[in-house]
């Protein structure tokens, strides 16, 4: 219950942030702009709209998660409101989870707005309801949950600037994890390959949560693949949140 109260308070605070609206307008402009871009193409018009729409959701969602997420805990310390909160009968774990859920709700609302815009456009172009896009949109949301959890983890012990740099570095690393492994397999020796394999397992494999390609081309997505990807995302978020709670639990605020 206390977690929910913190979550809604975080949501209310986040929706007052001007950066959120700027990014949302940018995303909607990107999705709308895809219609103009598609008219320049010969073939692949609907593909361009879907690809650009899904990219807008992913990119803008990531920016919202990073730039709001990294300040969530730090702002409370800076404004000294945290000192009041931790004296109340609320566990530190509940506070961190509430912050995460609050940003998750904010992102859910934003993703829903962007997704509605994309579905409307794609459905109008194809003259049918493109409901199959809901699967990659759902996975994109899960990807954003991973990014939010990373941002909150860094936010528990670092400044917003450093947290933003660390989070963006992990997001970029996570997007390139597969390429890194392929690169090591092609050029590295046994030690490099083992080291890269370890890094590959630790990094968030964000590409594993990307199911847009198959859906855009109209190919089938096995339910097992969706289930496994979702389970991977949830497990990674859980691990990050446990790490964040652990660090926050032992942090000295004196």
């Amino acid at each position, binding site marked *: 219950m206390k977690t929910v109260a913190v979550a809604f308070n975080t949501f209310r605070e986040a929706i007052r942030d001007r950066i959120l609206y700027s990014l949302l307008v940018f995303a909607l402009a990107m999705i709308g702009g895809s219609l103009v*871009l598609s008219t*320049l*193409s*010969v*073939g*692949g018009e609907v*593909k*361009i709209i879907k*690809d*650009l729409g899904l*990219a807008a959701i*992913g*990119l803008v969602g990531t920016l919202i998660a990073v730039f709001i997420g990294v300040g969530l805990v730090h702002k409370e310390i800076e404004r000294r409101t945290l000192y009041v909160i931790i004296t109340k009968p609320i566990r530190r774990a509940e506070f961190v989870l509430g912050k995460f859920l609050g940003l998750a709700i904010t992102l859910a609302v934003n993703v829903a707005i962007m997704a509605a815009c994309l579905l409307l456009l794609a459905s109008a172009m194809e003259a049918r309801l493109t409901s199959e896009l809901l699967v990659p949109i759902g996975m994109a949301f899960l990807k954003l949950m991973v990014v939010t959890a990373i941002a909150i983890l860094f936010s528990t012990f670092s400044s917003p600037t450093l947290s933003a740099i660390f989070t963006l570095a992990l997001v*970029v690393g996570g*997007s*390139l994890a597969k*390429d890194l492994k392929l690169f090591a397999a092609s050029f590295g020796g046994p030690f490099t390959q083992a080291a890269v394999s370890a890094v590959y397992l630790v990094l968030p494999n*964000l*590409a594993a949560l*990307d199911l*847009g*390609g198959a859906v*855009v*081309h109209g*190919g089938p997505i096995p339910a097992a693949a969706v289930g496994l990807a979702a389970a991977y995302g949830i497990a990674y978020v859980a691990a990050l949140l446990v790490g964040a709670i652990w660090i926050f639990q032992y942090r000295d605020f004196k």
Partner: protein
Amino acid sequence: MKIRFPIACLCVLLIASAAAAGLLSALEKARPRPAAEAGAPWLPPAGVVRVMSLGYHALAADLFWLRTVQYFGEHIQTDRRYPHLYRLVDLTTSLDPHFLDAYQLGGLFLSIGRAFPEAIAVYRKGIEHNPDRWELPYDLGRMYFLDLGDIPAALEWFERANRLPGHPPYVPRMVAHLRTRAGLIEAAIEMWERIRETTDNPWVREKATQEIRKLQARRHRGAPVTTGPTSGGKEGGAN
């Protein structure tokens, strides 16, 4: 004083905007127009673009496809030479190996530019990455038949398209025409009509109309279906 300031701002804004627009227009006129060769598109290796796009390689493929269409459109209206077309199509399809339109239209653009070995390479790459799609072997068969005049190779690819699910009724009809070597001109006309009906590209439509007229004239004269080169046929059938 309060009214003067916004009016002054508005005046400066209007003058500056008009000046910027005028200067840009003058600059475009003053700057020499680059030759088609000088305006070569930026084509980094697919691996580099894949890494740089941070997982959004399908979107990168779309952007390179748009560049391909613009490149083809620019050159078909001017010199009708396409030295970078194959690399553009190859880059697009390397970034998104399931981008069917890029293979189909890229192959067609290359065949219009008479770059037949490159067009064959594009179709074969598409078939390799999309073995369940009938469209690509059909398009390759069509190119062998209409452009290269290689009936045995065309027949092999049409038969392959005919074995794949989802093919339309005209595919077995083409197979029958080519097997019996009868009604080849009618088959060729029907193919170009299909292209004319389905394409959004005005140049492709125009090309189809021209080919239909040529074939109709040949039908009147009783000439063979194609006068295209046959050497491309050596590049292979449906293995």
